[in-house]
């Protein structure tokens, strides 16, 4: 509860701070402090010191896992603020509002990690989404940003409609919105006894596939990620997406939420298609930003494995994956924002002019590609391991790794441009030392997690 309230409050504070000061660095500072307070509050609650006790009437249920996930998300946001804070300042005039919206998103995330019924789930998703529609369109003069925003909004609302239809059908079949109660009612074999509940779940499932940008409901992703201001793409494609996944798993982890035998089939279909679309389409991109958008689709394909296997390994995996993926993507975007030219050629020769940027970017990209010794490897490792453990057909796992290999192709294109190609990568701005330090720190964290993922896992079991 701390997280929800504090993040909402932080949002309000940020909103108001815009009135009192115009100094953007102050606003940024306030936001970082607010975030730290938020983290502290959440950690306190994790260890049983809930300062605000509210009876949620069983609408919210705070689990350890959810709180840990909150912390992870907040830390990722912290990293995001550190690395991209400057870019947020430059994104437009309404800096305070941007921060406020980000905090509202975090509020949505906190709800999504603790919902105990479809109502809160729905509200969480909406609180998560609405600020994003705005952040996407925040570069008002830019037609691409406008377009992205409208596309996102229209398609997002459409998927909300689908989700609501699903919820209504589930309610019709069970008379309940609660996860637990619904569970009891549908614990029998849905094939024989009911149709509306599974169909409803199918709708929710589809809308969640949409939210986590899994194929064939991914179409919004490339356009939106490409059109949105880079700094917010970074936020959307990492923190928000991870939260979406957590909600997705949280929603479907109870066995009773079963769509029947075809459940796995549909999921398999979605996984393969997502990997296919994400990886294959990413290859032909010229813009690194758009490539990253597709790559985020392909990463979603991997993350879907956690849903497929839905065992403890999968849950551990989604944590590691979140950290690995978020840190790396935030880093890559933070560097991308500094570049003048977002195409692959824009990276040519970066290693010569900016060795630190090039090196850290390499670490991030290796992590995204899932090369061992980086956190990304363990992310993928857990996903595959959980799938194998859950008895997935080996073919599926093999397909996944083949696509992982394909993904190397486009990630390494960036590395090749930076290190092996001639050119002078032009930057927008001078790169401050603090930024470089932060990058190195995060690269080190990624490598450390890549070597000792147990440190993160042990903390989960603490």
């Amino acid at each position: 509860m701390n997280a929800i309230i504090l993040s909402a409050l932080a949002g309000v504070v940020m909103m108001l701070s815009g009135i009192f000061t115009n100094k953007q660095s102050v606003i940024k500072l306030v936001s970082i402090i607010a975030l730290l307070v938020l983290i502290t509050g959440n950690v306190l609650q994790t260890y049983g010191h809930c300062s605000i006790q509210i009876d949620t009437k069983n609408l919210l249920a705070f689990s350890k896992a959810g709180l840990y996930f909150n912390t992870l998300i907040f830390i990722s946001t912290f990293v995001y603020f550190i690395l991209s804070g400057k870019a947020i300042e430059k994104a437009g005039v309404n800096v305070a509002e941007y921060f406020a919206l980000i905090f509202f998103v975090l509020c949505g995330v906190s709800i999504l990690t603790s919902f105990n019924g479809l109502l809160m789930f729905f509200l969480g998703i909406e609180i998560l989404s609405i600020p994003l529609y705005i952040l996407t369109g925040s570069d008002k003069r830019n037609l691409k940003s406008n377009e992205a925003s409208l596309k996102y909004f229209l398609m997002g609302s459409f998927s909300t409609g689908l989700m609501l239809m699903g919820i209504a059908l589930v309610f019709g079949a069970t008379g309940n919105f609660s996860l637990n109660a619904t569970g009891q009612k549908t614990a029998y074999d849905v094939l024989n006894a009911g149709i509306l509940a599974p169909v409803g779940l199918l709708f929710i499932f589809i809308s969640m596939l949409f939210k986590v940008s899994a194929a064939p409901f991914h179409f919004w992703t490339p356009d939106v990620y490409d059109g949105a201001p880079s700094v917010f793409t970074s936020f959307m494609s990492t923190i928000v997406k991870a939260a979406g996944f957590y909600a997705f798993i949280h929603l479907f982890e109870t066995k009773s939420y079963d769509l029947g035998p075809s459940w796995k089939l549909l999921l398999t279909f979605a996984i393969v298609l997502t990997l296919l679309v994400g990886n294959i389409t990413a290859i032909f991109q010229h813009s690194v930003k758009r490539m990253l958008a597709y790559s985020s689709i392909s990463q979603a394909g991997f993350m879907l494995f956690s849903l497929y296997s839905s065992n403890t390994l999968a849950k551990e995996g989604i944590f590691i994956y979140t950290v690995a993926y978020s840190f790396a993507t935030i880093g890559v975007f933070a560097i991308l924002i500094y570049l003048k030219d977002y195409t692959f050629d824009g990276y040519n020769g970066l290693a010569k002019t900016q060795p630190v940027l090039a090196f850290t970017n390499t670490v991030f990209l290796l992590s995204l590609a899932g090369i061992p010794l980086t956190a990304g490897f363990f992310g993928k490792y857990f996903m595959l391991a959980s799938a194998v453990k859950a008895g997935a057909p080996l073919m599926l796992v093999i397909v996944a790794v083949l696509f992982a290999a394909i993904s190397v192709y486009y990630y390494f294109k960036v590395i090749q441009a930076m290190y092996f190609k001639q050119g002078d990568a032009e930057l927008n701005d001078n790169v401050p030392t603090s930024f470089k330090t932060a990058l190195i720190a995060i690269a080190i964290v990624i490598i450390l997690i890549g070597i000792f993922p147990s440190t993160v896992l042990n903390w989960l079991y603490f």
Partner: protein
Amino acid sequence: MIPVLLIFIPVFAGLISFLLKNERTVKGWALVSSLIVLATSIGAITTNNPASTLFDATWLPSLGARFTVSLDGMSKMLVLLTAVAFTLVFVATNKNEYKHTAAFYGLMLLTQAGLMGVFLATDCLLFYFFWEFALIPVYFLCSIWGGKKRIAVTFKFFIYTFVGSLFMLVGILYLYFLTPDQSFSLNSFYSLKLTLTQQCNAFLLFFIAFAIKMPIFPLHTWQPDAYEQSPTATTMILSGVMVKMGLFGVIKWLLPIVPLAINRYAMPVMILSVIGVLYASLIAIKQDDVKRLIAYSSIAHIGLMCAAIFSQKNIALEGVLIQMFNHGINVIGLWIVANAIEQQLGTRKLSELGGLAVTAPKLAILTVIMAFANVALPLTNAFIGEFLMFNGIFQYNIWLAAVAGISIILAAVYTLNMVQKIFYGNTVTATEKAIDIDNNVFLSLSITAVLILVLGVFPQPLIDLTKSAVHLLFVK
């Protein structure tokens, strides 16, 4: 404790190397480090004390993976090979000029650490880690310091091997969940009781990785390109040590775990290997580029080793183990020659060379020794390995041995072709002003030559070193 030293000395040396500024300091530093590792590895082969040959520490308790590294006969030998190879390479290429010298040597040393890890790990996940760890520095080495087409070629190499290792990762997971104690340790894997289907699944998943790494026909096309385009120092490591990873993997991580599957797939794999042996030999005959020629020759040799492993005869396996070492030494010798020629004359084309024996007699003589080691002449080290391997293949299937035997004729053809075109005849424009090799190359080639002859006459120490390992593999 020794295994840990073997891995971490190069790691630290490599990291420090990145920070060094002066070119000569870096070279000296790398050489010193490789000598220390060599000394350690000599210590390793002489000790049998379990306290010093085994190191075990918690790594990822929740996954069932431990940091377990240990030395057995086979790894002792390969560790020695790695240590010797790097020392030789550093000595031989000491005069080569590299931009960003510090980074080059740093990456080389990291590669060494990775290779050591592969040979020492007795935990499968750790093995996989080192497997990849060895690859990444090589990717950068080849892409930054390689030839004209380096980027595309190295990338192909990387993707190719990466695909393979991902298959292996799936295989590792597959076996991992079959182990009763959910552990990655070699012993758990060895204690697996698998059905034939399970063995075949695991075999196929692992073998793709190993087959690509070796490489066996028809998965070999990355190799000549990669060898040709890489900086020679890296090529030496690639072909001298790195290709042994695949063979090592099959022997250590497949043979004892999935014997039934090995038996079932023995024939097709051996046929492929033998085809590859002849195929590569025939192509080598037509090669004009020294590096490509050596590359194809290496493919042929590796193919034979692969066939020998799948004959599942302990004599052949012993041969393979010995040959891994010997082939490593020999092929590095050949690369040193290729490097010496390229560095001095600026060309590797046989058609542009000739008569070098007139101007560089020392190089000529040493090359002839390497060449005859390459054709496995008796009293050179390669003979012993090939003799034992052929014996094993022969026991498995006479016709395969006979067909594979054709390669000893073809090997003579292409190797002597190379020697002839480089050294014999009258000097041509490229070789007119050549001078004989410098002391570094001479020293490293001499060491190689001495190793070739000594191990060719007294192979028994090497056999004794690895005997027990072979025995254990078949006991399981």
